[in-house]
C-alpha cells in the first residue's frame, strides 16, 4: 500500500536540518519532516528570576508557539513533554541557578509537529553547545482505523488515525568510528492519544525505534557535515 506521496507505511518523509540561523540566539535550528517545519532557538545557560532558579541545577524553560493564534492547553502539554525530555539528557547539575530557555516556533504543520519540534530542539541545543550526555531523536507513528501502522504521518493521516504515538529515543555516538549512532533500547518519552490495543502500542514502539535510528543517522550526518 502506498500513501499520499508514494510512501511506504514505514517510510519517513524528506529530512532537512539547518543550523545557526538566528545570530542573536545562542543556538538555533530548523528541522523539516517533509512539509512540516519547526524552528527552535536556545538561550543559555543564562540567569533567570530568583523565584524560578534552582540552587542545585539548571532550570529548563520551554516555550512552544503554534503556527497561528495563541498557545492553549495543547501547547502547554507539548511544552511539558519537551521540557521533561530535555531535562533527561542535559547535564543540568553543571549550571546551578542558571536557566536554559528553548523557544520553539512551528512554521508549518503537516503532521508530526511534536516529533519535528523535539528534533529541532535537539539540534538547537547542540548548536548552543549545551552539555548533554545523549542526543535524542523523535518520530511519530499512528495506527489507522483498520489497525495499520504508519510511521511519520501527515496531518490528514493524523486526523483519520485511531491513535497517534510520539516517541523519543536517545542516541549516542557509536563506539566504533564511522558506525551508526547507537540508539537506546527503550523510549525515553512516549506519548499516545487515541484508542489502540497494548499490542498495537508495542508494535508502534518497535517501528518507531527503527525510524528513530534512521533519524539519528541523519542528524549525526547533518551535524557532522555542518561542524566540519
Amino acid at each position, binding site marked *: 500500500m502506498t500513501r499520499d506521496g508514494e510512501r511506504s507505511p514505514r517510510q519517513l518523509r524528506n529530512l532537512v536540518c539547518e543550523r545557526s540561523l538566528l545570530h542573536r540566539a545562542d543556538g538555533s535550528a530548523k528541522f523539516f519532516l517533509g512539509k512540516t517545519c519547526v524552528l527552535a532557538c536556545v538561550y543559555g545557560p543564562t540567569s533567570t528570576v530568583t523565584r524560578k532558579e534552582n540552587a542545585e541545577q539548571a532550570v529548563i524553560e520551554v516555550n512552544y508557539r503554534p503556527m497561528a493564534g495563541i498557545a492553549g492547553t495543547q501547547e502547554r502539554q507539548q511544552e511539558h513533554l519537551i521540557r521533561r525530555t530535555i531535562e533527561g539528557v542535559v547535564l543540568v547539575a553543571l549550571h546551578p541557578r542558571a536557566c536554559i530557555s528553548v523557544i520553539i516556533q512551528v512554521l508549518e504543520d503537516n503532521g508530526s509537529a511534536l516529533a519535528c519540534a523535539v528534533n529541532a530542539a535537539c539540534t538547537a541545543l547542540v548548536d548552543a553547545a549545551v552539555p548533554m550526555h545523549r542526543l535524542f531523536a523523535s518520530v511519530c507513528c499512528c495506527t489507522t482505523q483498520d489497525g495499520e501502522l504508519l510511521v511519520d504521518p501527515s496531518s490528514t493521516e493524523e486526523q483519520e488515525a485511531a491513535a497517534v504515538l510520539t516517541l523519543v529515543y536517545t542516541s549516542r555516538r557509536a563506539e566504533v568510528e564511522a558506525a551508526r549512532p547507537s540508539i537506546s533500547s527503550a523510549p525515553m518519552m512516549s506519548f499516545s492519544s487515541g*484508542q489502540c490495543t497494548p499490542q498495537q502500542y508495542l508494535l508502534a514502539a518497535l517501528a518507531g525505534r527503527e525510524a528513530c535510528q534512521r533519524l539519528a543517522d541523519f542528524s549525526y550526518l547533518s551535524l557532522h557535515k555542518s561542524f566540519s
Partner: protein
Amino acid sequence: MDPKGEVGGSLEADAFRKLYPHQFYANFLAKHTRPDGRALMQARPVSVTPNAVSSADSSATAKLGDSAAIAGVKLEVAVPAEESPDEGHLAVAVEMAPMSSPDVRPGRPGEAAQCLAEQVSSILASSDVIPRQQLCIEQGRACWVVYLDIIVLNADGSLLDACLLAAWAALRSLRLPSVILTADGNVEPCDDLPQTSSAAAPEGVWAGRMLQLESQPVAQSCAMMGGKLISDCTAEEERLADTIIIIIVDGRGNLLGLIKAGGTAEAGDMIMQQCIEAAKLRQQDLCRLLEDQLSAATLS
C-alpha cells in the same frame, strides 16, 4: 554522606528524609516497601462520592490517599457547530486550588493544571467515552454543552488519576433534563415526564435521560525510582522519581492514552506491560467501587 553512601545513624529520620531524600527512599525500596507502609505496586485507599455539590447538574469528589479532586458539570443549551449539526460539545477546565500545594500560586492556571485539562479532555474526546450525538437536542438547532470543571483540592501526586475518576463519576451520574423546543426556536426547561408513563413524549418535548458512557476510562500513574516500579505515587515520590508513566485504559482492555514524559529513566516493553496490567486491574477495582457508590446513592 561518606563514600559508601551511608549516613551517620545519629540523624533523626525526619531530618534524614529532608537532607538525603533519594537515600531515604532507596533504603525503603531495597526492602520492597515505601515510607507510608505500602508495597511497591500498592495503591492508596480510594473513595469516590457522587453528587457532592447540589448546585451543579452533577458532581463528584474523588480521593486517592490525600489527593483530592472535585468535578462538577454544568449544562447549557447552544446551537451546534455547522460542521457537526448532530453533536454537542464538552468543555473541560481544571483548576488547581492555591491551597492544594505549596507550588501552586493563585492566578492564571499553571502548566500542571493546563496539562491536566488537556489530558482529561483528550481522553474523553478521543475514545468516544461520550458519544456526542447523545448531546444533540435537535439537529442543527440545539444541543447540550457540557461544562466539566475539575478543581484539585489537595495535590498529593497521581493527579490525573484523581481528576479522571472525579470526572467519570460526575458524568456517570449526569442526567440531561427534559426540555421543550418552542415553535420560535427557543429551548425551555420543562418538568420531567413521569417515569411510569409508557406513552411517547408529547410533540416538541425532548425527554430527559441519563448520559450513557460508552467506556470507563481509568488512569494509573506509575513511577520508576532507582530501577523499581511503584504505582500511585505521592507528590514527594513524583518529585524524586526518575520518570513517571501514566497509562489510561478502558473497560475493554484498550489503551486510551499513554504518557511517559521524558525523565532520566527509559521504560522498556516489560515495564510498559507491567504498567498496563496494573492499570487494567485498577480499572476493574474502580469500576466496581463506583457502581457500588452510585447504587448506594440512588437507594438512600
